[in-house]
């Protein structure tokens, strides 16, 4: 199943946030969206996920979702969005309660999601008792439980410390390794983008327009190699040079706002 951004524009009142953004996320493909602060990355993700109606253009799906998918487009949120009154298990189960699943099947799906995210020992724990990284794991387990075709990840690591970010990045690489699931990964962290994405959509400063689409010329499996890392660092520098001036301008704009 493909996800298509078709000339998406959006404005909040007089503030123009996005202008004619178009790109396609193919089945099993990981596309990162980067750009200066305030360029509309998260707004674009909300539109792609059907949580915000665009002022113009549209988000479209092409092709059938996987037959067992309960929610083809599934978000992983920056702030985890866990229900504080539910345990880890109940949070993972939450999106399944309204799906037409037998109790035993629901239980099996939850078990599988908890196992894949190493949360089986924390099933009765409440979110407030967990670290930031563990909370995000619960968010990922909840997303996996509905067997998405495309994960919509809105800066999922930005609220975490660097060690936890590294560990969760390894988890993402593992989860996306078999190509069964695609992802749109919004981030301001270029290192994360080059490590995870097949293609990187670079947005200009507000109103966000597609400035460039950069393909990463190696598989995610190859990126762990030391020589590949050099190439990734050089790609990261290229990306930074693309957005540096605009990032400085955007920063100044925020300071003067």
């Amino acid at each position, binding site marked *: 199943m493909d996800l298509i951004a078709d000339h998406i524009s959006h404005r909040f009142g007089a503030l123009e946030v996005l202008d004619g953004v178009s790109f396609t996320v193919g089945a099993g493909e990981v596309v990162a969206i980067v750009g200066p602060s305030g360029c509309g990355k998260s707004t674009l993700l909300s539109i792609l*996920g*059907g*949580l915000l109606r665009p002022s113009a253009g549209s988000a479209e799906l092409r092709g059938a979702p996987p037959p067992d998918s309960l*929610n083809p*487009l*599934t*978000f992983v*949120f920056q*702030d985890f*969005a866990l*229900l*504080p*009154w*539910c345990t880890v298990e109940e949070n993972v189960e*939450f*999106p399944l*309660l*309204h799906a037409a699943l037998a109790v035993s099947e629901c239980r099996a799906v939850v078990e599988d999601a908890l196992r894949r995210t190493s949360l089986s020992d924390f099933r009765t724990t*409440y979110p*407030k008792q967990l670290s930031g990284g563990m909370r995000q794991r619960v968010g990922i387990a909840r997303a996996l439980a*509905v067997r998405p075709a495309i994960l919509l990840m809105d800066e999922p690591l930005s609220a975490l410390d660097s060690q936890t970010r590294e560990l969760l990045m390894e988890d993402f690489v593992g989860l996306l390794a078999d190509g069964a699931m695609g992802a749109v990964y919004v981030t301001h962290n270029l290192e994360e983008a080059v490590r995870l994405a097949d293609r990187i959509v670079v947005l200009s400063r507000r109103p966000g327009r597609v400035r460039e689409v950069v393909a990463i010329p190696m598989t995610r499996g190859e990126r762990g190699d030391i020589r590949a890392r050099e190439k990734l660092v050089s790609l990261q520098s290229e990306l930074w040079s693309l957005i540096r001036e605009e990032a400085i301008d955007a920063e100044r704009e925020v300071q003067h706002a």
Partner: protein
Amino acid sequence: MLDRAQTPKASKPGDLETAPRPVTFRGAGFAPKAGRYSGWIALVLAIGLWQLAGSAGLVNPLFLPTPISIARAIWQLAISGALWHHLSYSIMRIGTGWILGTIAGVIVGFAIGLSSLARGVGITFISALFPIPKIALLPLLILWLGIGEQPKIATIALGVFFSTAISVYGGVDNVPRNLIRMAQSFNVPFHAIVRRVIWPGALPSILSGFRITASVALLLVVSAEMIGAEYGIGAFVLQAGNLMQTDQLLAGVVILSLFGLAVGKLISLLEARLLHWR
């Protein structure tokens, strides 16, 4: 590499330039904690002093009866059955008025919290009517509903309704929007979002509202019973005051205070049970 150089020693003790001295602690205060027994100890001390002053004849017992005479009055009320008689009337009025006001307040509060139309209309009405002292409406309610239990119960229900509606829509407004968006992103139906996200998210505010409405109901039942009732704690206190039976009057006041404490404790238990996740 770690710097293992010795700290230079003071040439003379007390030399401010070179002698090491502890950093002044500046982080004290602004974190008050109630001692576990301090409140009870203070209460016992105050009652003890009050009793001593009364027993020593320093205070006229007509103006301020001693705690022992108040306790005796409560005991006599209890064994005569009058206490239960008055209390049962008050509890019936509070219970009925509170339940009716709470049900209406929760429904209207949720409507205001979830519907643009209800919000537009409801907030205007609530803002206009909430500040009115509800006891001022009792004569009008007597005209409308007749002399009997209904106007007293309606007064309590009105008082409870406004505070409940405000705390409920405030609670609904304060449910983190990201949780609602999360549920929407999983295609959770509207009724399930209300039941599984908004209701538990608003519950802390709703229970805080219950604490306030319990006090409002107590205040209004006493006022209403003082205006037009034969039985009830408010009526009993008024009668005792008219007959200058100050020990009976204060017995009624103590019973009201104990009743308020019991309701507060009940709500605390409810909070501990329902909000254990906080």
